[in-house]
């Protein structure tokens, strides 16, 4: 895991190395400073010549300035390295997701991907920064200080032998207990936020049933629960400070006592030594404290790193073949003994035993209830999923032999879950053809019956579409999505329930347009409304993953019970079975 994450450093490697170098420099100087300082004090005390004092003083100032520069530069390079690292990590994540097949995408929810790209990366960046700043520095300081302390202090340094293990043990124990407590709290915290979101979204329901007080009580209860758990976890961590303090105090008292005794009974030690020892003591304990903080940080961000790795490790389940076919001959479609299930572990096949042959230029309608796998069937054509058994051919070639983008450029699909993106109408349509001219765009829109309403907007094709396309109505959105697909000038056009919000008259006009303007394009239309498919060359009736009946409208009225049932239901309800928004 670390190896893969470390790969994201890339061009920022030099900053990492610079950071490490400067930090080592800073640490060395920082350990030397007390040593020189002790000299300075001693020379002042011994009433030394002013020139000696000045000399030592200047040396110290130079050292401080060096340390300042080193520290400052390290801070800068470290910021650059860690920000760069997280930038690359986000880039890798995003690019990885772009290589995903539909099957991969289905595994992750949108919100979980967003969290991984933001919060999780931020956590890992934090750890990364902490690691390069302190992972070298703290052990280095620790070792330096210990060596110096033993060299200078001799017997005085014995207190460290006792204090360090005690502190280390204490810190580890605190980490041990705190970590699971925190993990549990964070989970509950997520749930609390989910319940807030639920309330914000469902406020009309809450108010409609006058459940404000009930929700307050419910929320109060979970908030208090979290408070209890959180306090417990925080209080464990809060023990860090007293633990650290007691070690420091014991150390100081010991050094003062033993120091004064040694200073008086032997000549080996003087006051300067004692103060230096106190300084080293502080440095040692601080380093230990930092190390324990890193430990906590790393364990905390391990969860985030794991979630990130899940995305990076996910293998795209679909790749272009080594020697791909780069042109689609025509719009003919063949399903030869196709069965399909969404995941290998799924027990039930979404599609079973599909044999279907569509000639180029035909119009095919598909009718069937929810869960009858209409969408699954058409998704195999642009190779959004691969068939589990059998093979799907477009233009007489197995779809798995095409270069994927070639295939998908020839097979335009308007998904059931239609989306427009934030940007102008023109920008959205150019998804279909990046270099489309205004005339081409208007042409496609005229065909999709969208030109009139677009032109009625004050800003026409430059009208800005809000994120999620909230400022156009459902029917308008669907028509724009159709126009976007038409711009690809596809050999096969698939509409997956794409006119459900369009009124019957416009729906008919769109279909008429197809017949007269793109007769050579194979058109597949999935619909709930019989009226949308009844003129098709071939209508498939699907139920439970199988094609139960196929034929023309009149034939199916005779032969297919399901078809007849749906038809009667819709005609009884009046022919205006329509929807809006």
């Amino acid at each position, binding site marked *: 895991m670390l190896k893969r994450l470390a790969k994201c450093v890339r061009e920022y490697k030099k900053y990492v190395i610079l950071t490490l170098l400067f930090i080592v420099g800073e640490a060395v100087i920082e350990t030397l400073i007390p040593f020189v300082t002790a000299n300075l004090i001693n020379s002042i005390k011994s009433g030394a010549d002013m020139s000696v004092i000045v000399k030592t003083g200047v040396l110290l100032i130079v050292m401080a300035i060096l340390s300042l520069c080193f520290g400052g530069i390290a801070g800068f390079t470290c910021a650059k390295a860690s*920000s760069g690292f997280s930038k690359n990590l986000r880039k890798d994540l995003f690019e990885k997701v772009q290589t995903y097949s539909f099957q991969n995408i289905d595994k992750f929810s949108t919100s979980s991907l967003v969290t991984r790209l933001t919060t999780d990366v931020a956590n890992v960046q934090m750890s990364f920064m902490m690691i390069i700043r302190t992972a070298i520095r703290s052990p280095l300081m620790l070792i330096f200080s210990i060596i110096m302390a033993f060299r200078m202090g001799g017997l005085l340094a014995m207190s460290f032998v006792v204090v360090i293990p005690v502190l280390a043990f204490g810190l580890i124990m605190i980490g041990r207990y705190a970590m699971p407590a925190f993990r549990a709290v964070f989970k509950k915290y997520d749930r609390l936020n989910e319940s807030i979101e639920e309330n914000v979204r*469902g406020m009309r329901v809450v108010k409609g*049933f006058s459940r404000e007080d009930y929700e307050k009580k419910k929320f109060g209860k979970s908030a208090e629960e979290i*408070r209890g758990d959180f306090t417990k976890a925080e209080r464990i961590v809060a023990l860090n400070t007293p633990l650290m303090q007691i070690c420091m*105090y014991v150390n100081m*008292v010991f050094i*003062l006592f033993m120091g004064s005794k040694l200073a008086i009974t032997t000549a080996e030690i003087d006051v300067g030594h004692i103060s230096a020892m106190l300084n080293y003591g502080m440095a040692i304990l601080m380093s230990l404290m930092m190390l324990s903080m890193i430990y906590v940080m790393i364990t905390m961000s391990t969860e985030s790193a794991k979630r990130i790795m899940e995305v990076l490790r996910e293998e795209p389940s679909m790749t272009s073949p080594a020697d791909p076919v780069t042109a689609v001959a025509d719009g003919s479609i063949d399903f030869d003994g196709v069965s399909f299930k969404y995941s290998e572990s799924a027990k039930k096949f979404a599609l079973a035993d599909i044999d279907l042959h569509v000639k180029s230029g035909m119009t095919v309608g598909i009718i069937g209830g929810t869960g009858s796998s209409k969408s699954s069937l058409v998704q195999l054509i642009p190779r*959004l999923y691969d068939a589990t058994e059998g093979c799907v051919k477009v233009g007489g070639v197995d779809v798995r032999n095409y270069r994927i983008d070639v295939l*998908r450029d020839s097979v335009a699909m308007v998904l059931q879950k239609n989306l427009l993106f934030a940007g102008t109408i023109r920008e959205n349509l150019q998804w279909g053809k990046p270099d489309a001219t205004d005339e081409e765009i208007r042409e496609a829109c005229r065909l999709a019956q969208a030109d009139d309403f677009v032109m009625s907007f004050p800003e026409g094709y430059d009208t800005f579409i809000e994120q999620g396309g909230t400022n156009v109505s459902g029917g*308008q959105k669907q028509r724009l999505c159709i126009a976007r697909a038409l711009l690809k000038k596809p050999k096969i056009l698939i509409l997956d329930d794409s006119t459900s919000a369009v009124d019957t008259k416009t729906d008919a006009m769109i279909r008429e347009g197809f017949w007269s303007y793109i007769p050579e394009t194979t058109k597949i239309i999935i619909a709930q409304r019989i009226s949308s498919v009844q003129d098709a060359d071939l209508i498939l009736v699907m139920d439970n993953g199988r094609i139960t009946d196929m034929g023309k409208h009149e034939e199916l009225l005779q032969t297919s019970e399901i078809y007849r049932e749906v038809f009667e239901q819709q005609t009884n309800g009046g022919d205006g079975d329509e929807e809006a928004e």
Partner: protein
Amino acid sequence: MKKQNKAAPQGAPMGAPHGRPKLKTRVLKRLLGMLIKFYPVLVPMTAVCILFTAIASAIPAVFLQKVTELIENWQSIAAEQKLPMAEAWRMASAEIVPHILFLAGMYAVSLVTITLDTQLTAYITQGFLCKMRREMFERMQNLPIKYFDTHKHGDIMSYYTNDIDTLRQLVAQSIPTMIRASIVVLSVFFIMLYYSIWLTLLLLVGVLFMFLVTKKIGGGSAKYFLRLQKSVASLEGYVQEMMNGQKVVKVFCHEKQSIEDFDKINEGLFQESYRANANANMLGPILMNIGNVMYVIVAMVGGLILVTNTPNVSLSGLAFGVDIIVPFLSMTKQFTGNINQVSQQVNSIVMGMAGAERIFELMDQVPEVDDGYVTLVNAEIDPDGTVRESETHTGKWAWKHPHSADGSVTYTPLRGDVRMTEVDFAYTEGKTVLHDVTLYAEPGQKVAFVGATGAGKTTITNLINRFYDIADGKIRYDGININKIRKSDLRRSLGIVLQETNLFAGTVMDNIRYGNLDATDEECIRAAKLAGADDFISRLPKGYETELSNNGANLSQGQRQLIAIARAAVADPPVMILDEATSSIDTRTEAIVQRGMDALMKGRTVFVIAHRLSTVRNSDVIMVLDHGRIIERGDHQRLIEQKGQYYQLYTGAFELE
């Protein structure tokens, strides 16, 4: 209607390129005020503990100085008098040990206070956050629907996530550090004055310098961190959109393009991130080393003073000597170290203030007012028609109407008669969306609204249950002006099924019971049967005890609607508002949902917002709305004969948009 970007905290003048975030004392005051209000005893107690700890950490310098002085004295005495080492130690220890013991005592006290202080801080922080959350949530629950209609849900959520987090940092760390450090700085300052005013003044010059550096670098860092938040939000928005539309991206082979766009935003984020962090990272070493330089300068000037025999000026009147310089030096270290600590908090304070300000913004929203005094009570109706209030659940309800004029109380049985007279309404002033709407629904009647998006169908129902208040005209419910009815009672008498189904985390049973908290399991199941939901619920793995998560994501659209219908059925209100679902569900499921709706409507006054004309045919009255006016009204037959707008809609000549 859209609010400005969530990450643009009002505390910081983002527009001004050189504007550094200002601390708003008003916000700080209010925050501290709340802290003390929540914990009137513990907060001062913690402050006292911090005070003790701070003093206890400032004073040892004095003792260190004493002890070193004693050691040196005894060293020279021993040398002069040629005392045996052991003898010298025996005599010296009599003086030194009490000092050390006293020091140890101070340490012991400080250990107690520091333990108390950190434990209390942990306790108070979490308690404070919990109380803030609850207060935010409670105030939010009291806000009118308008607030939720005009604010992005993501923005509201970020109060509870991002902003609360900044408060945590502020309360748990920044404020205690500030208190502790300022106390140390102050006490050290006085001790220094006690020793030498000259050196203190010298130090002050250094402190001024440190202050300027903090203002420049720390302020810069805070500025970039605020911008960083904004960048993160925009990246989040982009990723959200792209991940949502990932399948569209794939279908259009748009991967390269979307990576390019992502790179641009990612680069922006990188720039802000490294600037913010660089400033923050650099501040520490720079301040620390300014401290080191100060240390050396103090030592050198001290030495100079010593050599030149300049007279000392101090509170103590002590003569200048080594025994003053040495402790003064260690105090210099402490002094600058604490100033360093304070400046490290600049970021979290600026961010915390911005967060607090936003939270206060939520808290200061004007809550929904409810001055209704007519209440809904259980009633018994005598055979002669008189209505009496009942203590127990009778299944019958009445409006209890106290009259302030003469103190009398009248009871009106709940029937479900709704009348609107000449109602005008505007969501925003000047933009009237309903004009002169008059309609009535007698108990048991079904009224359907038909019309394009934005014609005002939903608006009318928003007014009946007072999600919004009318600008002009009158709405009466069973003859009572709805403004006089307590809102919670009014809404209790009105059931709603919305087009977007919202379910809550919990079991299916919990979700149905949401309609009537007193309902027994049997009543809930009966409601589910009525709605036609019992069938599929029983087939769920755990039946009615199946846990729903994430707004019922594990159910199909149709199933969720059925639960929503059952939820309304268990409330058993005399008046129902049904907003039909628009999402396309297949014909068979739709038929089941339709049957559920029909069952629910039976015997009630119903307002239907229709999206499918097939469902409105059997309404008693159909209102065709256009731009906030009722342009046609009548039953299906009459409207078809009229050959007006309804006829055109019905024959599919117009889109219902």
